[in-house]
């Protein structure tokens, strides 16, 4: 369940943000994103609502996790 797609915040207007999904831009609601948002942040969009801010540093962390799992290292 739960199609969730990351998009980059381009503009914020009250409880809405214009997010860019690989070139397709859409306004999404940010009422329950659970974090402060700035232009340039990435958010996870589900059914027109941002449900999470995705911190940039977590993307790198994710790649580390993939590497550890592939080599049999313990998660740090």
């Amino acid at each position, binding site marked *: *369940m*739960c*199609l*969730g*797609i*990351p*998009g*980059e915040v381009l503009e914020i207007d009250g409880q809405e943000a214009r997010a860019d*999904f*690989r070139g397709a831009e859409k306004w999404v*609601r940010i*009422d*329950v*994103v*659970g974090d402060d948002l700035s232009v340039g942040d*990435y958010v*996870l969009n*589900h*059914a*027109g*609502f941002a*449900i*999470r801010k*995705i*911190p940039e540093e*977590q*993307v790198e*962390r*994710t*790649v580390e*996790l*993939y*590497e550890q*799992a*592939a*080599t*049999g290292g313990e*998660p740090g």
Partner: protein
Amino acid sequence: MTGALEFRDPDRAGRLVDRLEALVADTGPLRVMHVCGSHEEAIAEFGLRSVLPEGLTVAMGPGCPVCVTDLPEVDEAVALAKAGHTVATYGDMVRVPGTESSLADASAAGANVRTVYSAGEAVDLAEELDREVVFFATGFETTAAPTATVLREGPPSNFSVLSAHKYVPPAMDVVAGHPDTRVDGFLAAGHAATITGTDPFEGVVERHDLPVVVGGFEPLDVLLGLVRLVEDVRDGTATVTNAYPRCVSDAGNPAAQAALWEVFERVPGEWRGIAEVPDATLRIREAYAGYDARRRFDIETPDDDRTTDCICGEIMAGRAGPEDCPLFGEECTPQNPVGACMVSDEGPCRITREYGGRR
């Protein structure tokens, strides 16, 4: 960020698969279960089952909210549409058969059924139209949070919600506890966990002594989740692991949770195929009763007369696969679905039929 090579890199995927092969050589055959239609969709879309090791069975449990929406709930929506109200719902639900018909059938016969992408659009519709607009709200906790958000805003008085929302963790309990179910561990749904955090899975781990790994939806996320899960099975470790930290934290999203539990409460209810699941149906609280379609309308539905060989229930509970069903591909096809598992884009039967389960 989506589709960034990092999350779909074929080389890295190959190495994760190699790791899985090595792990499964250690553990012997094992069966893990995911509880998320989007996980099934990701696995099928990228053809992951064609590369997973032979001994690793990844079964789908009750994770397709469309599929577990029981007939009476669909019947309520259809009844409201036939009574002349505008019913707005997500695309996934429109073709799901009820006892007598689906919303699509009702629409073909002249009822007003509108597909919306977002709860906000359903409210916009109510603002535009003079008549009653009922939002047939399906989905798990991830989707219930947006529904809660629009209700808290005080939508127009001609707007109401027919809630079919459900909450997943108790269903994992029921499935794990069922004597016929064999599962060595769970891959939990990352986007639901984005809302709830990983805490709800602690109970499943304790009660059933099984590992739970919370996984994301890019193909590498799925492979990562499976590696961690198989490692836990190998080591006999029964814990909750977060393999999707970019979206999931232990405590989850507090703003979304606040909205969710202000509007909804958990009550017992029937999930298609699993029959009664305690505390896993989301009902609109008294404070928001004014927007509850079940309290606003007098809804008459046909008698629930299930004389069919459809085994959606067994499939949803992870006890059978699509090919075990006598109707699969014969009477029950995507064009002529009998059960919800064939209608929903995330239904296991539909996915097996469309992607072919190629190994």
